[in-house]
């Protein structure tokens, strides 16, 4: 017999328990029968006497059965299964405790599991299973500014020519063209201009038509577009003959060549794909659109190989183009690296995961409350437990039994918690989409991952230790003699009255209700931040919208102040269009004022670095350099919001003239930065990075 055969025999004895039990009984019965027959034949005994002597000679049938079971290492397993059965029976026998306990524990388990699942999707996102996991992202990092180089077009062209460890290199840039319907209505859609190689890397096939090809990237090629399923259904009437249809993106007609399924949103959550025509972008090094670069690791190559090769290319570029590349270092990473934490520093990742300790603490609080209830229940069974112990059950055996009872409770709670988590995750997706106003990334997974399932199993075990073991140790710690005496006199030493049990049940119920209320208030406050807001101005009278104009060349946007020379004409056109739009809006009944801002008061404002003279509070010298949040706003901004300017003056039309830089600060700025000095008339400088230089704007 080989080792494998021996292992099989061992496993058969352990796991085919019923077979083993039956075989054991049969063998012992056969043995006793054979011995009985021999005694009848050899010693002329009566069958009854012969059988009695055969049993005596065997030496205690039950004892040997136990020995056999013990050899199979099944004694503990039998006990465990019995204890679990008893535990589930207790759930039915004590419905009040079961309901309150399950509610408390499942709330904590669901919260913790949902947190972990969301963290997994954001901190450690993974491409869907059928995607090639060797897809990587390449970025240029400006080590001086400690930020991404937004214009890596020239570098991308170099990488595409020289890089061998990453193949099928492609690039993308976000676009948000107005989708114009037949009746002249326009609506911006989240699209992307990308290299056709993307569709070679990704396994998703189009629902209709074809994907983009290298031919489409030629400058002279007809303008084509691939649309997402959601656009196809909502804007194109789910027309099965849509391929070949002409649609207008802004002012430019495009031919629809394919429809991608809704599960496809590469690179993030895009619903429209047009070819990236790099030949049309003859811009100087250090300029060009904001590009993302992706590719697939070549066969046998690793991220480390690719990084080494890229580093060498980066050093050469820095030598050849010191003006633009002196401080730029290319970096390669898995396509979906940390979204919240920076990839190289794991500390942030740990910090985010450590946030789950709050929910584990919540589980401890709930578990401790339920443990009190379990202790109360154990007190009512003290006499039975004392008798069991007096008959030979060890303290460990009783603790194991009570642990199994708690495990039954936490297991049911874990199942309820998992169902709640699954529902919660769907709600999180809806809340996120509502808050951001966009679809979640295509790799976002609503389903529970195996990691989360294992985590919930661990939580159930942990919960069972809190709920079961602590009361069990307390209940079995007392001297057995005293407990038996108490049980005999009907005064069990661990007795809890009905009143106390009621008080404890109320306590746990209130804890759960309170925590749920806190969670609900927190959630509604968070939602309110996006939906209603509580601002000092009349927010209910305000209507807001965002506007964007098609065709911004060179990645320019009105908010950057037109620093890019190539965007000047576009900005003029944007200004004219905005003015016209404001005038038309003002002519509408009910609209009394129109203004604009780079960000709304409820949104995160952009940070800018400023220097303020004479403010030694923030630096060792006379000049303080700090980062503050700021927004670029229209001259009638404060008037429209009905926020009075409490010192100095509001903006005037002349303030928009180039070179005439003015700012309005809030009271917090005056207090924190200026130490309550009068800010009117004070001068500060805004610091901008231009290449590797700082440019100061007074």
């Amino acid at each position: 017999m080989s080792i494998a055969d021996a292992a099989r025999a061992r496993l058969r004895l352990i796991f085919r328990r019923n077979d083993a039990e039956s075989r054991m009984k049969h063998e012992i019965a056969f043995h006793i029968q054979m011995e009985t027959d021999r005694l009848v034949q050899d010693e002329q005994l009566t069958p009854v006497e012969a059988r009695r002597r055969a049993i005596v000679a065997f030496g205690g049938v039950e004892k040997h059965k136990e020995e056999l079971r013990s050899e199979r290492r099944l004694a503990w397993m039998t006990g465990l299964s019995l204890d679990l059965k008893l535990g589930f029976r207790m759930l039915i026998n004590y419905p009040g405790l079961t309901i309150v306990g399950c509610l408390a524990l499942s709330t904590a388990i669901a919260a913790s599991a949902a947190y972990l699942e969301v963290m997994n999707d954001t901190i450690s996102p993974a491409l869907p299973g059928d995607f090639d996991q060797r897809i990587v992202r390449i970025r240029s990092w400006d080590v001086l500014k400690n930020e991404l180089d937004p214009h890596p077009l020239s570098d991308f062209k170099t990488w595409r020519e020289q890089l061998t460890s990453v193949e099928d290199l492609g690039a993308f840039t976000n676009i948000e063209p107005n989708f114009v319907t037949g009746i002249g209505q326009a609506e911006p859609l989240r699209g992307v201009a990308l290299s056709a190689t993307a569709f070679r890397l990704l396994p998703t096939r189009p629902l209709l038509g074809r994907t983009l090809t290298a031919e489409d990237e030629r400058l002279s090629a007809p303008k084509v577009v691939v649309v997402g399923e959601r656009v196809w259904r909502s804007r194109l009437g789910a027309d099965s003959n849509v391929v070949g249809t002409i649609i207008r993106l802004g002012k430019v007609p495009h031919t629809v060549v394919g429809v991608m399924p809704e599960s496809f949103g590469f690179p993030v959550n895009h619903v429209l794909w047009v070819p990236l025509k790099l030949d049309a972008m003859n811009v100087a090094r250090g300029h060009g659109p904001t590009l993302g670069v992706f590719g697939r690791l070549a066969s046998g190559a690793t991220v480390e190989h690719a990084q080494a090769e890229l580093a060498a290319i980066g050093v050469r570029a820095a030598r050849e183009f010191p003006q633009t590349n002196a401080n730029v270092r290319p970096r390669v990473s898995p396509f979906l690296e940390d979204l919240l934490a920076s990839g190289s520093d794991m500390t942030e990742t740990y910090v985010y995961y450590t946030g789950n300790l709050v929910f584990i603490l919540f589980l401890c609080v709930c578990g401790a409350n339920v443990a009190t209830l379990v202790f109360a229940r154990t007190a009512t069974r003290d006499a039975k437990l004392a008798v069991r112990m007096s008959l030979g059950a060890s303290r460990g055996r009783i603790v194991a039994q009570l642990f199994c009872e708690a495990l039954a409770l936490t297991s049911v709670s874990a199942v309820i918690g998992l169902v709640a988590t699954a529902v919660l995750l769907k709600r999180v997706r809806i809340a996120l989409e509502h808050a951001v106003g966009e679809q979640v990334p295509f790799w976002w997974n609503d389903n529970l991952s195996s990691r989360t399932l294992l985590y919930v199993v661990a939580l159930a075990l942990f919960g069972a230790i809190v709920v079961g073991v602590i009361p069990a140790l307390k209940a079995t710690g007392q001297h057995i003699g005293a407990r038996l005496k108490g049980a005999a006199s009907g005064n069990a030493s661990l007795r809890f009255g009905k009143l106390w049990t009621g008080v404890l049940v109320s306590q746990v119920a209130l804890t759960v209700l309170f925590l749920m209320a806190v969670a609900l208030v927190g959630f509604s406050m968070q939602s309110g931040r996006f939906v209603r807001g509580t601002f000092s101005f009349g927010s209910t009278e305000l209507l807001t919208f965002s506007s964007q104009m098609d065709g911004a060349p060179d990645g320019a946007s009105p908010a950057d102040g037109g620093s890019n020379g190539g965007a000047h004409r576009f900005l003029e056109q944007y200004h004219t269009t905005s003015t016209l739009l404001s005038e038309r809006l003002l002519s509408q009944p009910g609209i009394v004022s129109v203004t604009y801002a780079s960000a709304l008061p409820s949104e995160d404002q952009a940070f800018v670095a400023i220097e303020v003279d004479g403010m030694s509070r923030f630096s060792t010298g006379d000049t303080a350099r700090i980062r503050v949040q700021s927004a670029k706003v229209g001259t009638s901004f404060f008037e429209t919001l009905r926020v009075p300017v409490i010192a100095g003056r509001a903006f005037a039309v002349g303030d928009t003239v180039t070179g005439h830089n003015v700012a309005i600060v809030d009271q917090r700025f005056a207090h924190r930065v200026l130490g309550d000095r009068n800010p009117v008339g004070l001068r500060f400088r805004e610091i901008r990075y231009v290449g590797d230089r700082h440019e100061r704007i007074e």
Partner: protein
Amino acid sequence: MPPRATTDALRGSLDLLVLKTLSLESMHGWGISQRVQQISEGVLEVNQGSLYPALQRLEKSGLITSDWGTSENNRQARFYRLTATGRRALKTEVDEWHRFSLGLEAVLRAT
């Protein structure tokens, strides 16, 4: 000698007796106990109840294997037989036992 060592020695002897008996022919549990008694002319008597844990232990170790069969009086019985591993183990055990008994005898003969 401490009690545990005695128990281990007895258990080892029982395993050796079972292996030797099964090397002669396949047998059920009761048959093994009878054969040991018969060959030893009544000197060695196997504790019948202890026989089955020993058989189970040997089977788990892969030294013997078992199958259902029909006994001499037409009853269903579990028949044990030696495996190749068991045969090798028996040879080693027998050699060990001989060396042990010679050593023991030498000590007992010493004056």
